[in-house]
């Protein structure tokens, strides 16, 4: 699974940057086409959901998604054949 921020919904409040235990969300630097500074993702493959959501069949952790006031965070199926980076942390 792949962590994505829906740029059509994100309003750039940066609340997601406060709650991720892996600090995956970093405040963005440049405004997008809608003039909103969307956070950037730092190695999102570290998120437990990217690795294990499909296996467990439910959302793990999920703090970023819960606090995001604009329902902008979700996990997408990777397209078949898409190269995936797997990060395992101990």
């Amino acid at each position, binding site marked *: 699974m792949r962590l994505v921020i829906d740029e*059509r*919904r994100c*309003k*750039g*409040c*940066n*609340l997601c*940057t*406060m709650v991720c235990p892996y600090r995956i969300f970093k405040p963005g630097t440049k405004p997008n086409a809608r003039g*909103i500074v969307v956070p950037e993702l730092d190695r999102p493959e570290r998120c437990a959901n990217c690795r294990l959501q499909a296996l467990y069949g439910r*959302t793990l952790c999920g*703090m970023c*998604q*819960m*606090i*995001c*006031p*604009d*329902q*902008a965070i*979700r996990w997408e199926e990777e397209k078949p054949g898409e190269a995936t980076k797997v990060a395992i942390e101990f």
Partner: protein
Amino acid sequence: MTYADWLREDRLPHIYCAGCGNGTVINCTLNALDRMGWKKEETIFVSGIGCSSRAPGYIVTDSLHTTHGRALAFATGIKMANPALHVVVFTGDGDLAAIGGNHFIHACRRNIDLTVVCMNNQIYGMTGGQGSPTTPRGALSTTTPYGSQEPAFDLCELASAAGANFVSRWTSYHVKELTRAVHTGFETPGFSFIEALVQCPTNYGRRNKFRNVMDQIEYFKTHGILLQKVKRLREEGKPIPDDAIVLGDFVQRNRAAMGVRR
């Protein structure tokens, strides 16, 4: 299913300002709802007027967006007429405690089987930041330009005294706890009241030394204090900070209730 299945995707993004805590409360409520396994067609959202009260418009179930302060009275009619429906109310601090204060205490007294989620931003958000019954003493608003002189309501104490079966307070920072509290509210027969303190960066934060959204979330995080701890401090005769936000379940009981599904 996930909480996202309960959203009216065609209406998003919603009208809330960037960083408004109301969106977070919607997430928590829908997550709790999803866990209940209720059907969409047997769940009804009701609200009054205010930013907070716009929430039902973003949810796929039947919903009634009513008049300022009166959501609980409308919800009472729905629930009494058809107790098989699960009725959830979104309201704001002004909606619930000012203009709707009388309906609030009477809905608690009747202990009618509703789950009420109050998004308390301590301000009138929609009308541009006037003082509300929960604006803290000293806080600035457009109608308290020298700092509010009025003591504020404690909504949870009010609901407890008036007879609600379940009463709990969390904030938009405490998403897991808030979700659990709403879930408990859904499960509890009778009146369940969940107060969610939320940031209103536009009309409260800005005027009250929270430069950005994160500052107020940080404040919720650092000033939140569990009810159990407050009780312990009290027993030990130790002081409780004035600006503490008391969090937790205030009441969980089984008083006779109305409108419970038979």
